[in-house]
C-alpha cells in the first residue's frame, strides 16, 4: 500500500459556513489535527470558503505553498464543487486535484454532539485526503464529429426528424425499407380530433423531404448494421433491388397494365390487389415503379418479360442487384414505427378467419377516399354496406395475461373517430363500441369523444368482448355490459378490432443489430423516462415516434422535432467532450475473460479475441464502475476511484 502513496503537497481548507458548521464542529481543532496528517502540507479554517475572500485565500495558498491537491471541507459537493474547481484552475491546478469533504449536510447538520461531530469531520476529511492523494490530473476526452445524420424509417416521425435536421443545415440520410416514404400515416383516412385528411397534410411534407437539398432519401433500403460511437458511426446500408431505375421511370404505367401477376395490396391492407410491378400509391415518393420479385413470374425474359418489352424509357433492368455500402454519420434517429398486433393471436375472435372482422388500419383504408371502396363503407366479404357495426377496443392491449400489458394509447380516439366517420357515411347504421375505459387525455380529445356519443348516437357498452363468431352471414359478438350487469349478445355485419400497437416487424432484429436497448415490450428504451425521453441509452442514438411506444401524430411529430434538435445540439459542438473518469482495462492485468463486457450497459467494453484483452471505448463509458467491481483481476480501474482509493478511504474512516 505504501508504494502506492505518491508524495503530494495537500492543502486542507475547513469552512465554518458561519455557524452552520462551526456551531457543531470545532473547525479550528479539525484544521489543526489535519495539519499533522501525512501528506498535508497546510491546513486552515475560514468563515466562508465560498466567499470572495475565501476563494482568494485558497488561490493564494495554492500558489504560495505550491500545493498539488486541495481538500475543501465544507458543504455537499453538489453545491460548490464546480466553484472550487474553478478556483483551483485559476491557481493553475488541474480541477481533478480538488475534492470536497462534506462536513455540513452529512455531519454538522445531522449531529448535535460536538465532540463526536468533530471526530467524524476529521475522519471524513482524512478519507478525502487519502482519495485526492491518489487522484490523477485528467483532461476531458475529446472527439471529432461527423455532422451528418442517419434517420431510420420514413414515416411521419422520420420525415419530420429529417426535415428539422436538414433545416438546421446538416446533411441527412433517410432510409426506408418500403418502396415509398409515408409510413402508416399515409394510409389513414382522416385524423382525430380535427378530421383533417391525413394524405392532404402528409404528402406535401413527403415532397418537401424529397426536394430538400440536405436530404438524401433511400427507399427500398435497409440498415444492416452500425459500428463506431457517437459522432463517428459507420452505417452499413443494404439496397434492395428495385429493378426499375427511378430516374428513368416516367410513371406511364404501361408495365403495370401488361403484368400478369396479381397479388394482394399492402397499402390497402390486403383489401384490394396490385400487380407484381407496382407503385404503392399514386403520391408515392419517390415516384417510381418497383418490381416485387416475390410475386413476379421470374426475371428471365423467357418466363415473362412483358414489362420490360413495353417500357419505352427502358427503366426496367432485370440485372439489378442487392448492394451493401457504408456511410459515415455522427448521429442516428431511430423512427421505425409500429405495426398492429396480428389477429392470429385472437382465436376467440376467429383469428383471420372472418373477412368482415377487420383491424383498425384495414378500416382506415375502407374509410379512405383513396381506398379500395372509394370511401364507401363496404364490408370485405360481399361488399354490402354494414348496417350494424361493432367496434372492440383493447384487442391485445392491457392484457398482461395473454397479450400485451400496456395501453396502446391511440385506440380510444381512433375508435371514436371510426365510429363517427361510419355514422357520417352510413347515417342510418348502428355503431356500438365495446370498451373497458375511454382514455381521452389530449387537446380537444374528450370533446370529440363526447360528440361521438351525443351527436352521432354511437352506443358505448362498457365491457370487453369474449368471443366473435359467424352465424350465416352475420357475426355474433358476445360481450357484457358491466354497467347494467347484462351479458350482451349482438348481431353485427362487420366488426372492427382496435388491435394493440407493437414495434414494427423486423424492428426487434434491427435494434439488436444496432445494439440499442428496448423495454420489456420491445419498444425502444429512453435514457431517462422523465429527463431524457428522446435519447437512447446508447450515446448518439435518438428516438422518434412509435418505435419508442404507442403515440398519436402530434406527439410523434413533437418527439421527432425534439430528436432533431438533440441531433442539432450534438452537431453544433466543435468537438465532443466527455467526462474522463472512465474505467480502464489495464492490459498487463487483463486476462481477457470478458466478464466486464456484458456488465456494461453502454457497450463501452469489447473483447479483442485476437489480442486476448478487453478494449474500452472511453467515449461510451459513463463511469458507473460496475465493470470495475466485476473484474476478477483488478484490470478494470476507474480513474480517480480506483480500488486502492476506496481501500485507503475505508482505512482512513475506520482507523484510529
Amino acid at each position: 500500500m505504501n508504494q502506492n502513496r505518491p508524495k503530494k503537497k495537500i492543502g486542507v481548507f475547513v469552512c465554518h459556513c458561519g455557524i452552520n458548521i462551526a456551531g457543531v464542529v470545532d473547525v479550528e481543532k479539525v484544521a489543526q489535527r489535519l495539519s499533522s496528517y501525512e501528506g498535508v502540507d497546510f491546513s486552515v479554517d475560514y468563515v466562508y470558503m465560498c466567499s470572495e475572500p475565501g476563494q482568494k485565500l485558497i488561490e493564494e495558498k495554492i500558489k504560495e505553498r505550491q500545493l498539488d491537491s486541495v481538500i475543501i471541507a465544507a458543504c455537499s459537493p453538489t453545491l460548490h464543487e464546480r466553484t472550487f474547481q474553478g478556483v483551483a484552475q485559476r491557481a493553475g491546478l488541474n480541477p481533478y486535484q480538488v475534492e470536497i469533504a462534506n462536513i455540513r449536510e452529512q455531519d454538522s447538520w445531522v449531529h448535535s454532539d460536538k465532540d463526536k461531530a468533530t471526530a467524524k469531520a476529521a475522519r471524513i476529511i482524512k478519507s478525502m485526503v487519502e482519495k485526492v492523494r491518489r487522484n490523477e490530473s485528467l483532461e476531458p476526452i475529446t472527439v471529432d464529429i461527423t455532422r451528418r445524420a442517419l434517420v431510420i424509417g420514413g414515416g411521419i416521425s422520420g420525415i419530420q426528424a429529417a426535415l428539422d435536421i436538414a433545416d438546421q443545415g446538416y446533411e441527412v440520410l433517410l432510409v426506408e425499407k418500403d418502396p415509398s416514404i409515408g409510413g402508416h400515416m399515409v394510409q389513414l383516412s382522416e385524423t382525430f380530433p380535427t378530421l383533417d385528411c391525413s394524405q392532404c397534410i402528409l404528402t406535401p411534407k413527403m415532397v418537401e423531404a424529397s426536394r430538400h437539398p440536405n436530404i438524401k432519401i433511400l427507399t427500398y433500403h435497409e440498415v444492416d448494421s452500425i459500428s463506431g460511437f457517437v459522432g463517428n458511426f459507420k452505417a452499413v446500408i443494404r439496397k434492395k433491388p428495385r429493378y426499375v431505375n427511378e430516374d428513368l421511370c416516367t410513371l406511364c404505367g404501361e408495365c403495370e397494365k401488361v403484368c400478369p401477376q396479381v397479388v394482394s395490396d399492402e397499402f390497402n391492407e390486403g383489401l384490394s390487389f396490385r400487380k407484381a410491378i407496382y407503385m404503392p400509391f399514386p403520391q408515392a415518393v419517390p415516384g417510381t415503379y418497383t418490381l416485387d420479385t416475390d410475386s413476379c413470374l421470374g426475371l428471365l425474359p423467357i418466363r415473362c418479360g412483358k414489362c420490360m418489352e413495353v417500357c419505352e424509357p427502358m427503366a426496367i433492368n432485370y440485372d439489378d442487384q442487392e448492394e451493401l455500402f457504408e456511410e459515415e454519420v455522427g448521429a442516428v434517429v431511430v423512427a421505425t414505427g409500429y405495426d398492429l398486433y396480428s389477429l392470429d393471436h385472437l382465436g376467440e375472435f376467429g383469428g383471420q378467419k372472418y373477412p368482415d372482422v377487420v383491424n383498425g388500419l384495414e378500416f382506415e383504408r375502407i374509410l379512405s377516399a383513396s381506398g379500395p371502396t372509394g370511401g364507401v363503407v363496404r364490408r370485405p366479404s360481399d361488399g354490402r354496406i354494414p348496417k350494424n357495426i361493432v367496434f372492440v377496443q383493447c384487442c391485445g392491449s392491457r392484457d398482461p395475461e395473454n397479450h400485451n400489458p400496456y395501453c396502446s394509447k391511440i385506440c380510444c380516439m381512433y375508435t371514436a373517430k371510426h365510429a363517427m366517420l361510419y355514422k357520417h357515411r352510413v347515417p342510418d347504421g348502428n355503431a356500438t363500441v365495446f370498451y373497458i375505459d375511454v382514455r381521452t387525455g389530449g387537446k380537444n380529445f374528450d370533446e370529440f369523444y363526447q360528440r361521438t356519443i351525443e351527436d352521432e348516437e354511437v352506443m358505448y357498452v362498457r365491457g370487453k368482448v369474449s368471443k366473435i363468431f359467424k352465424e350465416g352471414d352475420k357475426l355474433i359478438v358476445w360481450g357484457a355490459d358491466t354497467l347494467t350487469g347484462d351479458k350482451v349478445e349482438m348481431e353485427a355485419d362487420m366488426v372492427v378490432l382496435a388491435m394493440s400497437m407493437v414495434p414494427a416487424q423486423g424492428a426487434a432484429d434491427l435494434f439488436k443489430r444496432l445494439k440499442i436497448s428496448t423495454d420489456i415490450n420491445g419498444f425502444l428504451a429512453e435514457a431517462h423516462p422523465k429527463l431524457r425521453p428522446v435519447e437512447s441509452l446508447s450515446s448518439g442514438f435518438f428516438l422518434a415516434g412509435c418505435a419508442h411506444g404507442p403515440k398519436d401524430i402530434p406527439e410523434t411529430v413533437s418527439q421527432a422535432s425534439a430528436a432533431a434538435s438533440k441531433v442539432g445540439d450534438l452537431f453544433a459542438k466543435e468537438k465532443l467532450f466527455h467526462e474522463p473518469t472512465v474505467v480502464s482495462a489495464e492490459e498487463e492485468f487483463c486476462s481477457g475473460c470478458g466478464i466486464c463486457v456484458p456488465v456494461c450497459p453502454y457497450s463501452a467494453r469489447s473483447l479483442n479475441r485476437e489480442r486476448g484483452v478487453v478494449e474500452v471505448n472511453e467515449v461510451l463509458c459513463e463511469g458507473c464502475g460496475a465493470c470495475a467491481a466485476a473484474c476478477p483481476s483488478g484490470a478494470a480501474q476507474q480513474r480517480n476511484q480506483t480500488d486502492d482509493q476506496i481501500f485507503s478511504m475505508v482505512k482512513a474512516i475506520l482507523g484510529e
Partner: protein
Amino acid sequence: MRKRIKRGDKEKGYTRSIVQRSGQNVYACYQCGRCSAGCPFAFEMDILPNQIVRLVQLGQEDELVQSKAIYLCASCFTCVSRCPKGIDIARIAEAVRETADPKGADHFGPDDIPAHRAKDLPQQAYVAVFRKFSK
C-alpha cells in the same frame, strides 16, 4: 333502495378468506366483463361472474352466498382462459360456495335427483355435481 358500501372488518375479513381459499388476487380485476361475456351460463345468472368478483372485492358476503349464480358455474374455465389479468374466477366461485351455508346443508344433494333420471346419468356427472354443490 340506496345501498351503502362499508369496508369494515367483517367485509375485509370475508375478502381475505376468499383470497386465501381461492389463491387468487381478486384486486387485480379491473371489471372489463370478459368473463361474463363468454360464460355459457351467464344468461341464467342473477349476478354475473364479473359482479361476483366485484362483490368479493367489496366483501359482500350475504349477496354472494345467496346468489344462484355460484351454483350455475360448470367449471368450464372459459372465463379463466380469457381473463386479461389471469384471475381464476372458477376458483373464486368455488371459494364462495365453500363459505355458503356453513351449517352444512347441501345446495344440491342425492335426494334432489328424480328417480327416473338417476338410472341414466353418467357416474362422473354425479360425482362432479355433488363435489361442487353439496357439502
